[in-house]
């Protein structure tokens, strides 16, 4: 619904006083953090150099690397071919061909699903757009290939990334395994029902 004028709250920048106008305290405050980190690196045990590639870095689970296509409990591709990811994609790197699904519990599934990993900018918008949590970005980052074609990941390849990451136990933190996305759930579960929205 369009935003009503009564719902808009205008915020103005507060005036700054004499101390703030000097800027020196703020600079010192900032330097404090720098000095703390420098000291930690020099004298503490916080050495941060990693011996890559001899030692594989352990990336945080919310890292945005190569995509994977998730499987449902029966091992089928979870994707429903709604094109939300390819619509959201700012790099236009997702190409889907939809077809009527061979399974009775679903109407549509992706016949082909290709991501151009070279064109992708790893922004994670596909993941956010997905209504069924079928596409996710994993912690795989060291992506190499001998040709452009080999970097076009198709459905099988993306599903195999899922199998690999599940085996390696490096599920992305965003996974809500076994549960569908917001759009597929009753509003009560999403917290929408409890929040007080302005009814016209």
């Amino acid at each position, binding site marked *: 619904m369009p935003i009503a004028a009564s719902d808009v709250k205008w915020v103005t920048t507060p005036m700054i006083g004499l101390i703030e106008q000097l800027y020196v305290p703020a600079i010192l405050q900032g330097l404090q953090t720098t000095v703390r980190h420098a000291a930690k690196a020099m004298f503490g045990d916080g050495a941060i150099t990693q011996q890559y590639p001899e030692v594989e870095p352990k990336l945080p689970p919310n890292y945005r690397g190569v995509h994977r296509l998730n499987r449902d409990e029966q091992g089928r591709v979870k994707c429903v071919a709604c094109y939300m990811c390819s619509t959201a994609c700012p790099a236009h790197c997702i190409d889907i061909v939809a077809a009527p699904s061979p399974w009775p519990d679903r109407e*549509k599934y992706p016949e082909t699903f290709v991501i151009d990993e070279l064109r992708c900018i790893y922004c994670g918008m596909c993941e956010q757009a997905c209504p069924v949590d079928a596409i996710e970005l994993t912690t795989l980052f060291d992506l190499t290939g001998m040709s452009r074609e080999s970097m076009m990941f198709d459905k099988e390849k993306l599903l195999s990334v899922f199998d690999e990451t599940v085996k390696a136990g490096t599920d992305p933190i965003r996974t809500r395994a076994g549960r569908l996305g917001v*759009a597929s759930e009753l509003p009560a579960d999403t917290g929408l029902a409890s929040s007080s929205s302005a009814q016209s």
Partner: protein
Amino acid sequence: MATVYVNDKPVDIGNEKLNLIQAAQKAGVLIPHYCWHPALTVVASCRMCLVEVGERKPDGTVVMQPKVVPGCQTPAKDGTVIQTLTSRAVDAQHQTLEDILLNHPLDCPVCDKAGECMLQDYTYQFGSAKSRMIDEKNTPPNKPYIGDNVTLFTDRCIMCSRCVRFTREVAGTAELQIVNRGHHSEIDIFPGEPLNNKLSTNVVDLCPVGALCSKDFLYKHRVWNLKTKESVCPDCSTGCSIHLDGNKNIVYRLRPRYNPQAQGHFMCDDGRLGYHYVNSIERFLRPTVRREGKLTPLPWTEIASLVRRGFQSAAQKDGTSTVGVLSPFLTCEEAYLLAKFIKGLSPQARLALDSVPIVGEDDTYPKDRRGRPTEPVKFTIRAEKCPNRRGVEAILRHFQGEIISFEQVVRDAVEGRVQALYLAAGYPPRPSGWVSDTQAQGLQRVPLVVCHDLLPSPVSNFAHYVLPGAAWAEKDGTFVNHAGLAQAIHWGITPTGEVRTDGQVFFDLLERRGLAHAPTVRKEMAAEVPYFAALAGSDLGEYGILLESSQG
């Protein structure tokens, strides 16, 4: 002169008989509606268009009715006051939407209608973001086969009954009906009597939600990726106005566009589903010349000068033996350019009209249950299966006064009186074909044959030059329908391969510089050919321009 007050804004509606939805439309106010459609009867069953209505008395006092009324079945008269923003009207719309959404599944991501769905739009504008429904939704099973071209997702239906009324009132064949009652009502067919009339796919456009879907377009693409151009259906001389939806050089679907001068609101399935040849892989993709019996590709520049020189030398020897055959699938501008080229070679050179495909007889709707046409006629599928016979004939009449038929050309060719023949064909692949094998055999005696066509035919098997034509979806131009209505067509996709638009090829033959810009050529043609004088403006408008319709 009647004045209606829409949200306190006075609007003059003249003497038109309008309902409140239409009157509000004149004021730029949208009253949401599902079951009402301008071409169908009013049932006021969806209750979406509830508004507050009153009357302004001559002394200026306003008397409002104490309840909301459906806008679709309330006539607007002088002094009618419509309030769509009062809390009573807003609450009514809100509650109606909540009721409709009780059983409507939230499967927008996999629904083909998403993006052009009236339920999505109205929920966004007039509804609520949340549902209070805690019980399970009704999920009646889908009906994948209710017709050859239409499938029904029963659970998405909101029971507006537009499709049922369409089959009863416009198609007349009344295949669809509502079975069961209340929240268990469903759209259905009688067993063994599917929705297979020639207008059946219109119910997909009429359906405000994604319940009825076209099997041809099902899951092919998402609608927000489609780019829409205004065009004209080329499959019969009715010349239905259409929306041409394409993306990435593929035509995905055609939809009817409202045009009171051409066909009204709808279009037939033959035209709607007849576009697939545009995407065909069998189409000619590059200009070729036959050398030692084989078609060899050549660049356009070379081939244009070869063809031009061939025709010039033939015309120098004998003007009457040089013949240009203009297909009724050419746009007026292209026909004009080709006629200029042929007549420019020699004033005696002849122009002919290519074969005009006639299939059966005019098919009118509505029909009764036994398939017999009834009066009054609401839709006509014409027997003449080409879009622009009248436009091409006007060009021929202007350039040589008479119209020579294709049969005459074939007879002349058999008698050896044709030395150079330019066949601007551009025909879609239809069962009968535009040229028979015997006709092609007759043409085989001509020493120089240029076949400018989309797809292989008996002529392209022996023609000396085979030039790839552009399909109607790739061209700009003008079509003149059976009643003399000139409508503009616009390109929706670009020609594939080395294909150039026919107009551009004729430009090259005429040694004109630059790009063939249809509106410019149209202006030139309007100045030269009196029949097209009315098209002198650059824009033909949404509904086209009715040319003088006394001839033909």
